[in-house]
């Protein structure tokens, strides 16, 4: 037996121990409905924490933009690779 604690369906990611990560990942709901639910939950968490407040700050919007920048960089990395200055690192 690998884990001392039984994994329940809705333990949070931060409470999962490192060894249980594989089984936890297998337990998650990967149906389209499940994925949509996960996206909705994530969005609601972010929205209610950073944007839906009385005095919202800069961070709420800038984090989204920074995430977009990093994501677009990752997607176009294979194209940017050709601009490298040294061939061997």
């Amino acid at each position, binding site marked *: 037996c690998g884990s001392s604690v039984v994994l329940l369906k809705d333990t949070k990611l931060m409470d999962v121990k490192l060894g249980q990560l594989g089984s936890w990942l297998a337990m998650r709901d990967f149906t389209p409905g499940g994925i949509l639910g996960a996206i909705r939950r994530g969005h609601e968490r972010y929205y209610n924490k*950073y944007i839906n*407040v009385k*005095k919202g*700050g*800069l*961070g709420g919007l*800038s*984090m989204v933009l920074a995430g977009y920048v990093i994501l677009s960089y990752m997607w176009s990395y294979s194209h*940017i690779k050709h601009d490298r200055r040294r061939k061997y690192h």
Partner: protein
Amino acid sequence: PVPPLPEKGGEVRHGLIPEEFFQFLYPKTGVTGPYMLGTGLLLYLLSKEIYVVNHETAAAACILTVLVYAIKKFGPNVAAFADKLNEEKMASALAMKNDTIQTLQTAIEEEKKEQWRAEGRSYLFDARRNNIAMLLEANYRERLLMVYNEVKKRLDYQVALQNLKRQKEQDHMIQWVEKSVVQSITPQQQKESIAKCILDLKALSKSAHAAV
């Protein structure tokens, strides 16, 4: 009812990294931990050229400089403006709510007053009843007076009729008696009475002479 919105959003340091990350690393590495992590990560990315320095980097640097300067300079103004807009919205909504409550309060007051007024209906009805009774009474008395007058007129007529009849009888009888007396004075009696009168006159004149 809907719970009120939280005052401030989650804390974000340097506008990019949430405060939870710093708190997460604080027990193990203290205050400088996340910064060291950031520096090391940056150097690794640069040295392995996972982050390539090209024309886009120069563009990004310029844009970021301008952006940071603009935010530092105009941030508070924009925040104050947005706060003012929010305040106005809240104030107008609150004013509307207060106005509605006020209107309803006055409506309640008016309603209570109307109820109090409705209680006085009995007095109104009493007054009206009295009015009608008085009208009836006046009408009755008027008619009574009329009846009395009419009856009196009839009776007066009868009395006048009787008086007239008696008077006429009296007059007629007097006339008849006079006429019969005058008729009964025969010439014989006339002469006798004239002679008697002359004798009386002589006697009177004698006594008068004597008196003078």
